[in-house]
């Protein structure tokens, strides 16, 4: 379980593409310097999006032949930051700039039981873990949740391979994942304290699971998750950042992050992980018009609710649930950038 956070760049050639599910594209890359990608790893790609080079992270679904073939699964997100549209346009023969496998979501060894929870496209981070657990002969459960069956990548294959270890929840079939029941069942089992959960999915799902996990007093270190900061409470929309100290306002397009927009505007800000984990790009919030969609995992729930600060790399301003799509005024956030 080497935790490899070293990032080196190489070229990868697209060798195969196909549709995995509605709106989900399979992209198989052949890297220049193949390294086996362990379960839980992702690769970062440098994509040229409308003239700006952006880094995007994609879980490695499958690593074959010592890493000579790495399979990614990419969901086309209408409100994404542009990366998925680019990825869906790739064809065999195209070359991308990519890192070697980066591990920040390693599958542990030695737990009595493993529960993998995939929400939507989050399944891409868990396919290889489920395979590894099956090979080990471990006790594991794979929970797959999605809005509609047609958009759930790998569903058929996983059910076939993992049989009754898979539990499928589909919103529009009214078989919804009940987080309280799932976590309650773990908490009530004899292996409760020695159960590890690995989850990847929309941040609302992960927040709900985390709250249930904490309320059952399950050991927090046993709850593992990965987020690339790409999902929030609301769909991404355009908003405005006011920077009174610099006497500037910057518009953030729905395809761009606040951090990207500030950098593009020449504002020098400090950052590190760019996925809402480390807190380096945390700044104080002076005022909000609308709501803050935090999207990070650095601030605690309580900190998020106070609107006192946000992480520039993933947070967005949004008009909130009652927003009129045609309302003229975008949401805005005023930040303290000393």
């Amino acid at each position: 379980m080497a935790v490899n956070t070293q990032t080196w760049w190489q070229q990868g050639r697209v060798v195969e593409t196909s549709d995995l599910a509605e709106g989900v594209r399979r992209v198989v890359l052949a890297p220049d310097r193949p390294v086996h990608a362990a379960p839980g790893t992702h690769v970062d790609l440098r994509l040229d999006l409308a003239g700006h080079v952006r880094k995007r992270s994609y879980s490695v679904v499958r690593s074959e032949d010592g890493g000579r073939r790495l399979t990614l699964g990419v969901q086309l997100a209408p409100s994404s930051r542009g990366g998925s549209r680019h990825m869906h346009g790739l064809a065999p023969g195209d070359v991308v700039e990519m890192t070697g496998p980066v591990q920040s979501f390693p599958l542990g060894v030695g737990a009595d039981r493993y529960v993998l929870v995939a929400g939507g496209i989050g399944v891409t981070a868990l396919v290889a873990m489920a395979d590894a657990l099956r090979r080990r002969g471990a006790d594991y459960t794979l929970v797959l949740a999605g809005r509609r069956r047609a958009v759930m990548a790998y569903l058929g294959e996983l059910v076939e391979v993992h049989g009754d270890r898979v539990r499928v929840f589909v919103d529009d079939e009214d078989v919804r994942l009940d987080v309280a029941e799932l976590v309650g069942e773990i908490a009530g089992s004899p292996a409760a304290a020695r159960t590890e959960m690995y989850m990847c999915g929309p941040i609302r799902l992960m927040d709900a699971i985390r709250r249930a996990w904490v309320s059952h007093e399950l050991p927090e270190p046993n709850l593992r998750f990965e987020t690339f900061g790409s999902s929030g409470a609301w769909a991404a929309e355009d908003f405005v950042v006011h920077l009174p100290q610099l006497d500037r306002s910057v518009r953030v397009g729905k395809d761009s992050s606040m951090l990207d927009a500030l950098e593009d505007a020449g504002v020098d800000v400090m950052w590190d992980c760019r996925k809402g984990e480390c807190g380096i790009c945390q700044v104080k919030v002076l005022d909000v018009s609308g709501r803050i969609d935090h999207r990070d995992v650095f601030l605690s729930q309580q900190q998020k609710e106070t609107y006192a600060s946000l992480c520039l790399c993933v947070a967005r301003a949004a008009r909130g649930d009652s927003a009129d799509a045609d309302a003229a005024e975008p949401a805005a956030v005023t930040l303290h950038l000393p």
Partner: protein
Amino acid sequence: MTILDSPPITAASKIFNFPRNAWYVAAWDHEVTAKQPLARTIAGVPLALWRNSDGRAVALADACWHRLAPLSKGTVLGDEIQCPYHGLRYNSAGRCTSMPAQETINPSAIVPSYPVVERYRYVWVWVGDPDLADPAAVPDMHQMDSPDWAGDGETIYAPCNYQLVLDNLMDLTHEEFVHSSSIGQDELSEAEFEVSHDDRHVTVTRWMRDIDAPPFWLKNMRDKFPGFSGKVDRWQIIHFEAPSTICIDVGVAKAGTGAPEGDRSQGVNGFVMNTITPETARTSHYFWAFMRNYRLESQTITTQLRQGVHGVFGEDEDMLAAQQRAIDANPDHEFYSLNIDAGGMWVRRILDRMLQAEGLPAAAAAK
């Protein structure tokens, strides 16, 4: 891969690479404690070894997730280890449980935790693919904690590639020259030997019949048979188990009393237990013990045997260090083999195949 770009035959590589997918001894059981972590590099991986409150041995990568400060300089706090620099804490799975100055814990804050098995008085670790770490694959060293055997041992920090130690133990004709005052005798290089193998084991068997017992063995015979004198039949049966454990069945019996045929009752029997853990390409942890199956009650004999073997192995250590220096000083010179190297060459072939299966070259990378 075509024949042209397949690797050359490297069975005589001088600096032999080591498999990662293997159990290696990291420490004697008593060296790993809940009081303070032990720093030790195993198969190229620096580890912090400690025990949690259940008494279970834990092996974490010896570098904090944050700024890579060595956890082995930190503190064991029950089920957690605390980094000495900024106080981040990790549980035995390597997951961070506490970070300074923030309310949450970064989801990627994990250090690798390696599979550990305690067996035969040793703490074994697996630094390769954890999904392949089958406890049943720990090499057999059952004499170490069997009620039928008694003895003790030590660790040598050997400044040489681990394969040189394996070579040393797979061919004992060197005893005549390196250990002439204790166990060496002319008959060693005169006696025939037989080599057998399967895909994990190599056995070299040598019998020397009707010979004088060298000083070490005469002393042992007299421990069991006070006042013994006369000729003996002597045996050395070397059992190698991949990747680097060698248990040598050694002994002497009164000549002509049937030992070669299986009746060892008129003799003394020991097992020289050796397991060699590569530290780096040029350094090794050499764990050894001498176990005997007679006079089990005598701590005096245990101490004397440990001290005696300590002296003998000190001679090997000097030779191995000098050999490694000469190898490094003569980079353009190759190894050649003698007839007596057959056992060692089978060991190399087994290791070579293990390395190939891992996609690793047989020769370790240069310094």
